[in-house]
């Protein structure tokens, strides 16, 4: 069958509808009826910023927000094209939210800046014509263009401009643009990033945010457990982690010790009645312990943390029974093992090597 225009047209129409739908869903074509205020058009007409943002040039830290109202528009546009609110369509609601957040969380006085900038608002509001939620406000990099604040950055002294960054739970909701932005696989990455600048993290994050994951007994505060309905929260323990936790630990030996101590395993297993003494089922596969040794030695070297999870503390006697000096289990030390400990007096050496061994 040969395809003619009658066949191609429906397909083209379907394709166009599909692409248009995708454009909306993907955000390529915004669906919102409102759109950013036409700042550029007004500036090109020679209208200065303060004609609409009346009084902003003398504004202090408090007072009105100096955002125009419909009455401001009607001052010039005396014949509006319909009777709806001008700013309902000719502005974005997020602009007011962003300005309100800035007023609440930033110490800033326009009157000090308009003079220094010779009334050139765009010198700071460089992206005011862009259609993005953060566009109306100058970026921190813009502030740093004049105010170096190098000492304040070094001393983590943010209070000059930001109000209670840590206490407000990052109420500003504005992530920095530079290297401290939390991007990519941040859960894995944050350890390396925070190592050198832990106190920088503390300028925004409170102690409880660290303690929610790190430390002993923090399970009730885990974000994945507490905010179970926030399904987009990242985290290592999301979804069916309990089912796969043994495999996760095996795939990255030692990772669990970043937050857990070796007693964490036995604490949880005892609560769930899957620890030795609470169940007759052995967690070890066949061939784990044989007369020739079996698999347990190899696996213990790969992931000693897992062994210590159940057999640590008093449970170590199970190992010492065979692996003590002169015992049938032989030397458990791996190739190249060395230690600065006193083998007769320090733990754990004395368990097998005790005085007289």
């Amino acid at each position, binding site marked *: 069958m040969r395809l003619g225009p009658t066949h191609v047209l429906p397909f083209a129409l379907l394709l166009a509808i599909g692409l248009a739908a995708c454009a909306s869903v993907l955000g390529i074509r915004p669906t919102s009826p409102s759109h950013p205020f036409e700042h550029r058009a007004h500036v090109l007409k020679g209208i200065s910023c303060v004609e609409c943002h009346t009084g902003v040039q003398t504004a202090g830290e408090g007072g009105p927000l100096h955002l125009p109202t419909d009455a401001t528009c009607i001052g010039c546009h005396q014949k509006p094209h319909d009777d709806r609110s001008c700013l309902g369509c000719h502005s974005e609601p997020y602009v007011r939210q962003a300005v309100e957040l800035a007023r609440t969380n930033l110490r800033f006085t326009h009157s000090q800046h308009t003079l220094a900038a010779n009334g050139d608002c765009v010198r700071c509001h460089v992206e005011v014509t862009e259609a993005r939620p953060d566009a109306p406000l100058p970026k921190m990099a813009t502030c740093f263009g004049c105010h170096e604040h190098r000492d304040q950055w070094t001393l983590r002294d943010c209070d000059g401009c930001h109000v209670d960054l840590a206490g407000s739970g990052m109420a500003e909701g504005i992530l920095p643009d530079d*290297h401290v932005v939390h991007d990519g696989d941040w859960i894995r990455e944050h350890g390396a990033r925070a*190592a050198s600048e832990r106190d920088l993290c503390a300028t925004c994050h409170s102690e409880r945010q660290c303690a929610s994951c790190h430390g002993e007994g923090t399970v009730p505060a885990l974000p994945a457990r507490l905010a179970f309905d926030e399904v987009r929260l990242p985290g290592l323990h999301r979804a069916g982690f309990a089912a796969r936790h043994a495999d996760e630990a095996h*795939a*990255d030996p030692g990772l669990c010790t970043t937050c857990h101590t070796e007693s964490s395993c036995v604490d949880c297993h005892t609560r769930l009645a899957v620890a030795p003494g609470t169940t007759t089922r052995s967690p070890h596969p066949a061939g784990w312990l044989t007369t020739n040794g079996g698999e347990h030695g190899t696996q213990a070297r790969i992931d000693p943390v897992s062994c210590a999870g159940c057999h640590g503390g008093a449970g170590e006697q199970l190992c010492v029974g065979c692996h003590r000096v002169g015992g049938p289990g032989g030397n458990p030390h791996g190739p190249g093992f060395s230690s600065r400990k006193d083998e007769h007096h320090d733990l754990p050496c004395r368990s097998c090597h005790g005085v007289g061994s």
Partner: protein
Amino acid sequence: MTPCAHADPLRLRGDAVAASQGTSSPTGLIVLQGEDARKPWVEAEGLVWAGGGSSFTGDVLVLTVRFREPHGYGELRAGRFVLATGAVRPVQIDGAYAIGRAPWGSSVEAFGGLPVVPRFATRSYDWVAGGRVAQKIRLGIALGLSYVQRREYGDIAGEEIGADVAAAPLSWCDLAAFASYDLLNPGIAEARASAAARSGAFRFELFASQQSPGRLLPATSLFSVLGDLPSETLGATVRWRAAPRLEVLASGAGQDVAGGAGGNGWLRGTLKLNEQGDADLGLELRRVAVPGAEWTGARATAMLPLGKGFRYSSEVEIVVPDYPDGRGVAWPWGLSALAWRSRDGWEVGAAVEASSSPLHRYETDALARVSRALDVR
């Protein structure tokens, strides 16, 4: 009229969570943060939880007082908190931490305390102490050297020195790394590095790590004497903002786990369904292939606002192990949740969770949460 900027002196948040299968259910958490309005250099923070169930239990997770020199030259924290700095691994302690900073970029940190024993358990004689010196130099480079010593039952349980570096030489690239060296059983205990570059819609990160589980255990543990079989990882992550509302993350890594080669990788896509970003769909595929741990997983999430403060969210996951070994051929898991948030700080959520795991052939759980946040001025 919007008032001028000011801090809220007192913040209180309470959460109560109940789970039908929880061992400490219902559980309550209280967070209290305070700052003196007239002396903003003093802050206090507390996070406590208590749980019911078969026996009443609870714990203090955070209880700190923080004093800051008004210009940032120094800071002192005391109480219960998570200590982490430089190459010193995070440890929750009852103790103190102090840092002194100089305008030319030098800083000195010192800390000491007793590692936390959960649930008010009795403490044996043990402590952790150490410090770090750091210097910032040009091009956003920060260098640090750290030392930590841990004691357990009177015996030395760990002694490490560490080095860390962070640099942001250009606006589009940055790197960070740290390494800790075990002085008791000489060798690298842990090393991590990350280097990232950004360009337009893309961010590319290279990462590497080495960790020696035998050295990460306390040196008082019998299992620390087995020798050094470190696991090493080298990988990359790419983030692509494919469209204004579509973000794609992909990561892959090669691993050497105690001499056995393997790897893992995942692909995650998140599509926001509206411009406010409060509705989205997510899909994640994951493959882990390390000798002894080989499985494939898929996870999907959805979050949809229903209006009037209500929100529906759902999450499903299925994991298929390559070698079930009697643990079940697949481990499905699913959750459906409905939550409501008021304008004055109330939050209520309820969910049903169902799963099949190596432990339970079939398990269902009902979850509920009530939260309230208060700012007292």
